[in-house]
């Protein structure tokens, strides 16, 4: 915390030194000098005044001259992201690239020199292309598929329903966003934050709320990719903070002590059949989620087939790392203050928090509901319902930790992974449904 304060002090000192030096007086005059003006002044003034003019001009191109309070706020947020990632280990693989991206995106600059992420032709803009066109999310899903072990889900298929139950967060948030006055496509993109799945959220918002599509009444949709992605990723990182209180609130001590019987061993054949069958079923139901689910199950088949270990290895290590780096930095950089700090973003952040709460509660309550029909050692520990909000594998870990708090010998991780990966499938299906309705 001390360091953050120190950085803040240094930054504010640099900002407030500006009026003291008197550089603020006539920015608008000197900021657009033509080459003609410069040659004029060279012939008139002396060497010293020329040098000072040059320095002044240079100064107007620096970040100090162009900084606005929004930039500073966003840079501070970026630093907080990095701090959270390093200090508390909250999804550092995401928070650190995004945090740095936020800083990069909010360095003040003079517009028109192909610097910023929203300026056509800038390097960042080209990298951002993968976000805007929804290229990165399917690639991430390929890697996730090659990492994920679906065996606990195959062993206990009914846990798949918990992944569906948590999607109530998506649709509830969708409705909430409509009430707050967002248009249908925007609300759909905001709703998917409740799916707790960063790539899915980016995919859907790049299709629905990209600032390009034209609405039915003739207006253009707002570009909400930045706020939605930041909200989704930051709440995913905050899963260890958001979920435990809801878990404690909605489950009794007795329920938390329920021990589930260990899942049966799953044969390799079943594991190989799973991605093919699941791909066919899910994409026939919701073809719009094809880019996400197709890549997810393709990656999983690479892993389970046993013949393509090289491809699976690349997909789950190098490929996903490369895409995560690009995605993190560009999503972070897309939070340029003048685009990002709006009332909409604040509302999206509020809705995002609520959606996580609803999704967690939905999973927990549905697990309790399922318990009404299950007997003996088939009963579920309702805590694993909370893992139905994707956020792989953090929410499963949170469930595990909460289970251990109630009973130090109750290991829920394997059980929690089932609704966890089902949540990924569920939120991708939900995204496909929203896309087919509103796209």
């Amino acid at each position, binding site marked *: 915390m001390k360091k953050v304060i120190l950085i803040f002090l240094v930054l504010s000192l640099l900002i407030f030194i500006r009026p003291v030096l008197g550089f603020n007086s006539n920015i608008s005059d000197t900021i657009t000098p033509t080459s003609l003006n410069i040659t004029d002044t060279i012939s008139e003034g002396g060497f010293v005044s020329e040098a000072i003019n040059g320095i002044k001009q240079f100064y107007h191109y620096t970040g100090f001259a162009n900084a606005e309070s929004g930039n500073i706020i966003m840079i501070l947020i970026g630093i907080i992201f990095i701090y959270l990632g390093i200090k508390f280990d909250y999804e550092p693989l995401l928070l650190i690239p995004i945090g740095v991206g936020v800083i990069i995106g909010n360095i003040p600059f003079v517009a028109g020199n192909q610097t910023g992420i929203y300026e056509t032709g800038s390097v960042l803009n080209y990298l951002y292309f993968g976000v805007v066109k929804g290229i990165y999310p399917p690639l991430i899903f390929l890697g996730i598929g090659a990492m994920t072990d679906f065996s606990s889900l195959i062993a206990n298929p009914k846990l798949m329903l918990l992944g*569906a*139950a948590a999607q109530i967060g998506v*649709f509830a948030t969708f409705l909430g966003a409509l009430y707050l006055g967002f248009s249908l496509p925007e609300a759909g993109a905001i709703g998917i934050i409740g799916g707790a799945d960063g790539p899915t959220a980016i995919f859907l918002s790049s299709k629905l709320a990209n600032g390009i599509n034209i609405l039915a009444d003739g207006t253009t949709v707002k570009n909400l990719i930045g706020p939605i992605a930041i909200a989704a990723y930051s709440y995913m990182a905050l899963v260890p903070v958001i979920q435990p209180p809801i878990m404690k609130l909605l489950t009794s001590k007795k329920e938390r002590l329920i021990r589930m019987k260990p899942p049966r061993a799953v044969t390799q054949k*079943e594991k190989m059949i799973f991605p093919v069958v699941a791909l066919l079923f899910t994409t026939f139901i919701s073809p719009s989620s094809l880019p996400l689910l197709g890549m997810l199950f393709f990656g999983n088949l690479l892993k389970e087939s046993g013949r393509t270990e090289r491809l699976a290895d690349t997909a789950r290590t190098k490929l996903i790392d490369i895409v995560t780096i690009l995605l993190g930095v560009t999503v972070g950089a897309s939070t340029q203050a003048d685009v990002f700090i709006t009332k909409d973003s604040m509302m999206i952040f509020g809705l995002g928090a609520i959606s996580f709460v609803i999704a967690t509660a939905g999973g927990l309550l549905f697990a309790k509901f399922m318990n009404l029909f299950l007997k003996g050692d088939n009963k579920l520990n309702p805590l694993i319902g909370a893992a139905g909000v994707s956020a792989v594998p953090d929410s499963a870990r949170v469930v595990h930790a909460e289970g251990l708090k109630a009973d130090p010998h109750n290991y829920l991780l394997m059980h929690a992974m089932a609704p966890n990966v089902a949540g990924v499938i569920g939120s991708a*299906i939900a995204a496909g449904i*929203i896309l087919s*309705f509103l796209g």
Partner: protein
Amino acid sequence: MTHFLVFTDTLSEGYIILVTGLIIVFSGLLLLTVFFKYGLPIMLYVYKIITKGRDKKVKEISPRVNKEFTGEIAAAISVAIHMYLDERHDKENAILTIKQARKLYSPWSSKIYGVYNNRF
């Protein structure tokens, strides 16, 4: 159409999407559940029959052959193998020594080769 009407339309459409969306998500995952609960064992059974002939009993072929061998045991074994193959950091030698690896004299560092300009 007034703005108010548009707004109510949006909301009612929202409710429609809410309900249908939830139903589709649930039915999709329910379908998967049912398939993996009942369909897959049957498929595996049929596969066995095709490949091994009809003399096998259903019990032997079901995927739950061995109740003793649970997923937890499989996980423990795979963790052990993983640790053995990839995570054996603690077996590294902690003592660092600096060995003189290269020879003190080598033609590459020799001054005399620079002197013989006429060698080639």
